[in-house]
């Protein structure tokens, strides 16, 4: 008999609220099946199970908030111990650690109600407007059952706009920043990367592709980091009570700004092994699901490093705060045109500032410099990425 437990979705999570069960006692489940939806400070997250078995019974009713590690259900035929993956982290008060100040927009009059991913999917399939529904879940969250009711023509009246809980989010950010800055001896490195080759390659590649097949610079940057990590394992992993533990793969947490406020960094697993096309497809899928609230628990607990990319608008450089228990964060600023010396000539080049925030308990500045320089080097040969 195994226990399906409230998973930790990162160093910051202490407890979660069970929103709804998507399986019933007696249902057979396979590894990777989504069995429940949990409300966290990161929104409604689908929880996938890590072993095969049959759901014996529920131990927790929807609406209940329980600490990480609490058994939620008994699973027959599964290993006794760990069914839901629990990320081991030092026991300190924690909260989400955004790589950059999270973008928190003022609450809008037409703010969206919280909606479970399964409910969102059903609503989309049935063509039901979520804005017109009132939810029966915790905090007015719209559940699968609410959409089913609406689909059956028995929908309740219009929902009151649910506002983002800015106070809660600020508290979470404060705790995370404090923990990271209190515990992690950060050091910072910065370098300027000439993007001429990467952007030229990208423009040529995209010129012959339909929009659905086009690549973004972000895909090249992520791939360059993933490849460079292969030769710099001390930046890829976790710092725990036992010291530095290298990651079991290169799973890049990709910082994604959430509309309406906040930041989330789900993993692109084994990014070093993906082609640029596959990496781009994964990134596109991840951004879409992060913004529609349909991430899986494993995607939040897997990252072995974080990359934050400021994109085309904003500022030139970001000096990140490491997301514990990770040990490094790579930041990319906005590409800008700058005078650039080439031999004895000066030309206008598009350049980008790449930065590294790293944990001095796991590495030194010399290794960090080699790692950052290797990322630059790889971006000079985009055709090899």
């Amino acid at each position, binding site marked *: 008999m195994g226990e399906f437990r409230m998973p930790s979705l990162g160093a910051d999570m202490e407890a979660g609220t069970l929103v709804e069960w998507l399986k019933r006692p007696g249902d057979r489940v396979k590894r990777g099946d989504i069995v429940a939806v949990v409300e966290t400070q990161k929104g409604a997250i689908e929880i996938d199970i890590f072993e095969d078995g049959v759901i014996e019974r529920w131990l927790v009713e929807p609406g209940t908030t329980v600490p990480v590690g609490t058994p939620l259900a008994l699973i027959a035929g599964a290993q006794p111990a760990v069914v839901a993956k629990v990320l081991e982290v030092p026991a300190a008060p924690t909260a989400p650690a955004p790589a950059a100040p999270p973008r928190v927009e003022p609450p*809008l009059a037409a703010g969206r109600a919280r909606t479970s991913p399964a409910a969102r999917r059903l609503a989309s399939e049935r063509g039901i407007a979520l804005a017109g529904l009132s939810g029966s879940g915790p905090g007015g969250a719209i559940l699968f059952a609410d959409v089913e009711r609406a689909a059956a023509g028995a929908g309740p009246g219009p929902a009151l706009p649910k506002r983002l809980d800015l106070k809660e989010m600020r508290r979470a950010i404060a705790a995370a920043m404090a923990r990271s800055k209190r515990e992690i001896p950060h050091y910072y490195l910065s370098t300027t990367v000439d993007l001429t080759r990467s952007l030229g390659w990208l423009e040529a590649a995209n010129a012959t592709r339909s*929009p659905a097949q*086009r690549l*973004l610079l972000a895909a090249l940057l992520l791939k360059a980091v993933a490849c460079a990590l292969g030769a710099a394992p001390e930046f890829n992993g976790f710092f725990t009570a036992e010291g530095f533990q290298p990651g079991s793969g290169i799973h890049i947490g990709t910082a994604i700004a959430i*509309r309406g406020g906040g930041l989330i960094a789900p993993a692109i697993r084994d990014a070093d092994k993906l082609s640029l096309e596959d990496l781009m497809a994964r990134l*596109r899928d991840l951004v879409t699901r992060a913004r529609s609230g349909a991430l899986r628990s494993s995607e939040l607990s897997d990252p072995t490093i974080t990359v934050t990319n400021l*994109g085309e608008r904003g500022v030139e450089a970001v000096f990140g705060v490491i997301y514990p228990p990770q040990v490094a964060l790579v930041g990319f600023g906005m590409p800008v045109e700058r005078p650039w010396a080439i031999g004895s000539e000066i030309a206008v080049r598009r350049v980008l500032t790449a930065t590294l925030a790293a944990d001095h308990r796991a590495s030194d500045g010399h290794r960090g410099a080699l790692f950052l320089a290797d990322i630059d080097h790889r971006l000079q040969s985009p055709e090899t990425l």
Partner: protein
Amino acid sequence: MTRDDITAVLIDELGQIAPETDASRLDPNAELREELDIDSMDFLNLVTALSERLEIDIPEIDYPKLATLGHAIDYLAQRLGGTA
């Protein structure tokens, strides 16, 4: 396809990307990226959706022509006119 039809498609797709805003009330001269807080992934998704729904190619080099709602409608109308 009339100009009104094109506008409706564009407003609909912008609404998909920025569901919390009322795209039909956008100032036609405002920069879409600023007005709707659109990043490069959102913009690529917009271009992908428009090219599929309107059955036109939108080359990357033409992206600046989609900077505002007004310019985007002009551009799409011209592309549709040219391929009809």
